């Protein structure tokens, strides 16, 4: 290897950018400042009773209820009606997660299949695009009455809504990403001797993956959003059902507990999905 080649190897190795990375780490900590300040303000406002606890319960009470929700003794019933609160957090959460998960996976499966058809076949695009665009324009809430008629109040309607809500981002992302795989990648692979039946796994899939993952994340967020619509429509289990019951009995603190649980789960799910797919999409990071 000649000295000239060594030179540009060294130049490339130096482009690692350590200081920039350190700065990002500090930036991340900054993200915690605003929530802490807001939390403080919230406590103060509630403490001096600027607003009635009925409208805005202090964070300390919410925290206590949050603890009760997950770890309270199931023997003491704090909520009248069919939807339990104390100690039922795990069950509610599981039930919401299962609902969202089933709807999401169904959307991922159907969305990927139809998306692939759209991405690869101009004929499929011409046939389906107008219909799909029209359906996509229907707000998710507009499907609610129909879902209730078809599937009845409860589980079926909730799943159907989650499926529809989570479907579009997957379908659009898969369709777009596969139709935009550069021709040169396919040509290079063929020139290097890749059999046609392998092009999928070797070229189309990895090339489309970053965009598909973005679609999956958006879709997961939507699935989690629509869960609450489904649960407010009359299930007896799930975090949304708990919140609905809490609202009916005037327990704002418990409603806030539900909001916190939704926020935390949404955040965690997004981070997990990002971590799980990081290895395959690292190359596309800016």
């Amino acid at each position, binding site marked *: 290897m000649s000295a*000239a080649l060594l030179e540009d190897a060294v130049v490339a190795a130096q482009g690692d950018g350590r200081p920039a990375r350190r700065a990002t780490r500090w930036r991340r900590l900054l993200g915690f400042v605003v929530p802490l300040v807001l939390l403080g303000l919230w406590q103060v406002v509630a403490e001096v009773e600027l607003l009635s606890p009925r409208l805005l319960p202090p964070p300390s009470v919410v925290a206590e209820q949050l603890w009760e929700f997950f770890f309270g003794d199931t023997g003491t019933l704090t909520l009248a009606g069919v939807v339990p609160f104390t100690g039922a957090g795990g069950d509610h959460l599981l039930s919401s997660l299962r609902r969202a998960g089933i709807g999401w996976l169904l959307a991922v499966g159907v969305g990927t299949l139809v998306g692939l058809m759209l991405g690869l076949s101009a004929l499929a695009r011409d046939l389906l695009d107008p219909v799909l665009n029209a359906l996509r324009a229907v707000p998710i809430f507009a499907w609610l009455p129909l879902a209730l008629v078809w599937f009845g109040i409860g589980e079926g309607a909730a799943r159907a809504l989650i499926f529809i809500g989570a479907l579009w981002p997957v379908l659009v992302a898969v369709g777009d990403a596969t139709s935009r795989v550069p021709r040169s*990648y396919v040509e290079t*692979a063929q*020139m*290097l001797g890749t059999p046609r039946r*392998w092009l999928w796994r070797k070229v189309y899939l990895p*090339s489309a993956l970053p965009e598909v993952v973005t679609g999956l994340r958006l879709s997961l967020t939507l699935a989690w959003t629509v869960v609450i619509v489904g649960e407010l429509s009359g299930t007896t289990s799930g975090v949304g059902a708990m919140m609905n019951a809490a609202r009916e009995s005037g327990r704002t603190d418990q409603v806030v507990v539900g909001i916190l649980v939704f926020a935390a789960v949404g955040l965690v799910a997004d981070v997990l999905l990002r971590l799980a797919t990081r290895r395959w999409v690292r190359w596309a990071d800016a």
Partner: protein
Amino acid sequence: MSGTLVARGLGKAFGDLVVLDGIDLEAQAGQVLAVLGPSGCGKSTLLRVLAGFEPPTSGEVLLDGRPVSGPSPQRGMVAQAGGLFPWLPLRDNLAFGPAASGRPAAEVREVVDELLSATGLDGFADALPKQLSGGMRQRASIAQVLANRPPVLLLDEPFGALDAQTRLRMHEWLLELLAERPTTTLLVTHDVEEALLLGDRLCLLSNRPATVVDTQPVPFGTGRGRAVLADPAFVRMKAAVLERVLTA
């Protein structure tokens, strides 16, 4: 030695637009044929037809006397942008060809290691293409194609996007590489200096629709380096050829 690539009466038209008009050329086994032509004359189209990415409208391409069509590992092509897959680390990019043709893993590893050192990229086996410099990426792209040990190498302005200094270093590197592993090479370029530095023979194309205007030997011998740039005969030939390209 095998690897003689011949184009016989090669024509290519896109609708009414005739790009190639009866191209006859021969890249002799183990030699470098530099194809020079005015910008936009259809040089890239010629190479894409030779590589099998585009079917010719007329004529045929022969490799060692046998007609060939469609892309194949037998005719490895490197475009100006290079052929690295951005999602694969360098090692997997180089292994792509041999692995696709089902070579055993141990053999693939051996080929890749050898090419990594031939390209001076030993320390970058796990780097992604975007982490490499332009020159490194082009060396890697050529190595990716050579991993299949093709009898014919097709280069489409592979150093066109590099700065002048890097380009000169790439020229010397490529000469060294081809000396070690003789491969019939067809180099398409608009850079006269590049053509004279790398080519054993020179093929001049006309403006579109492209035809072969002239084929001549390049008389500067093998083992050329930057020293030849100062040779008065080289300077004279460069000026003369440039004049012919500009008035082609």
